[in-house]
């Protein structure tokens, strides 16, 4: 970390003296590609509502963790998110109901349960606020290491499975006729999203995390001509907007997660205007 800290000392900004800013910078540089990559599959697979629901279940997991007095409630949240993802994938395969109805049922139940547990016995909700808004400036070097490990794992899984996931999302029947297990690809993919969303929630915030999972690819779709450009533009947008969002929020004093989301939204609007020229 000391090398990283020393890296910026020559720059003429006052944040170069602040280690928490450098931590945050490193954290967004690790998190942004993660969101950029996952975003492409979430958008192509029409799962943006589902990833939103996963964020809600992560909150319930955190509430349960806090209730049980766990030192690190985030791991309870990760476990619950995975359970949620597995249960959801199973129910969606079994039920006749539309996917968005199933997600709605799960999502609202998760939030209700989370709030119920958080306020049980007249407890104050205030201590959970940080999970709603998120605080990237609180990230520690150890947590950045964890994020880097997750990024590495996701990249490896991505290289191994992305063609299967792509085929499963654009044409399930074609995928299964070519020997791809749809259920397994879906399950793997939803579990990865669950873990990433849950780990990132305390820094990005439950209320805005989904914009990072949807906007980068949604904007990239407007300008990309093929898969290569799609992934590239998505990762770049996530990276540029995250770094810019960190500094803008520092300069004007507001939530980093929300600023990043707003920048991504502006880029999405611009890309929509570009769309007619590209296509």
């Amino acid at each position, binding site marked *: 970390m000391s090398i990283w800290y020393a890296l910026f000392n020559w720059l003429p900004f006052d944040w170069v003296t602040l280690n928490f800013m450098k931590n945050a910078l490193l954290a967004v540089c690790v998190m942004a590609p993660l969101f950029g990559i996952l975003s492409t599959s979430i958008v*192509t697979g029409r799962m943006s509502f589902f990833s939103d629901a996963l964020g809600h279940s992560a909150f319930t997991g955190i509430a349960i963790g806090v209730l049980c007095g766990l030192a690190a409630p985030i791991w309870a949240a990760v476990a619950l998110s995975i359970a949620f993802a597995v249960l959801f994938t199973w129910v969606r395969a079994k039920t006749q109901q539309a996917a968005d109805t199933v997600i709605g049922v799960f999502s609202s139940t998760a939030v209700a349960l989370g709030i119920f547990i958080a306020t049980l016995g007249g407890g104050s909700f205030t201590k959970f606020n940080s999970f709603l808004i998120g605080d990237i400036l609180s990230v520690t070097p150890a947590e950045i290491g964890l994020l880097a490990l997750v990024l590495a794992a996701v990249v490896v899984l*991505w*290289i*191994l499975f*992305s*063609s*299967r996931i*792509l*085929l499963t999302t*654009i*044409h399930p*029947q*074609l995928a*299964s*006729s*070519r020997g791809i297990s749809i259920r397994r690809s879906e399950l793997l993919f939803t579990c990865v999203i669950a873990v990433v969303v849950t780990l990132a929630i305390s820094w990005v915030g439950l209320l805005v995390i989904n914009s990072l999972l949807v906007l980068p690819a949604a904007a*990239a*779709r407007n300008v*990309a*001509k*093929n*898969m*290569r*450009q*799609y*992934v*590239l533009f998505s990762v770049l947008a996530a990276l540029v907007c995250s770094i810019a969002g960190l500094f803008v929020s520092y300069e004007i004093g507001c939530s980093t997660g929300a600023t990043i989301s707003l920048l991504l939204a502006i880029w999405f609007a611009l890309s929509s205007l570009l769309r007619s020229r590209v296509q």
Partner: protein
Amino acid sequence: MNHHAHHPHGGCGDACCLRVSDLSVRLGTDQILEHVSLHMHCGEMVALIGPNGAGKSTLIKSILGQQTYEGTITFSTPEHPSQRLRIGYVPQSPAFDRADPVTVQDLFVSCVSRRPAFLPVPRALREKILACLKNVRGEGLIDKRIGTLSGGELQRVLLALALEPMPNLLILDEPLSGVDVEGMALLMEMLSDIRHTFDLSILMITHDFTMLAQYVDQVVLLDKTVLRSGTPADVLDSDEFLQAFHLGGGQA
């Protein structure tokens, strides 16, 4: 179509064939298929017709191994009496999102290799994809996005995909729906060429009867079970056909 001439006893002798015997499928309390039997040789083009809800798609799913069934499906060649059947499948009118930035090349890369579609494609793989597309006169489509293809172009791309690796049996689920008249003729010509060139069997579900007499060897009329099968002229003139499509309330 004249394979039978060599085998007067009804067996397959030295030809390869696909045989579905006494196949039944039940979903819950619904009997979808009952005692279905059919038999086709290599190089034969067979059309599967029947009213909506006749179980055509279920039969195809059974052959594809995506549906549990009672009965047997066997495939044999002279060298291997019970060889594993390699099936190429062209799915029904796929609804690709126009906005998906997936090109024909991306689709091929995902299907024929396990490479991620977002990595640069090696020259050899691109050459291979072009060769596949050449089978369907579609080399020019390689960099087009799949959402922007016409119905006929999309069917040709999916056909090229189904031919890699080369199957013994090609199954097409309503390949002519959403394809204009010109595209239909092109597609049928292409299928005719392909089965002769590569000596594979073709089984297709269709609702378009105008093409049958010209291209198809055998027509199988299905409604829960095989009502009639034979040459196009025989089946299309039969009482069973008239009943299934006119008196039975089905749609042609």
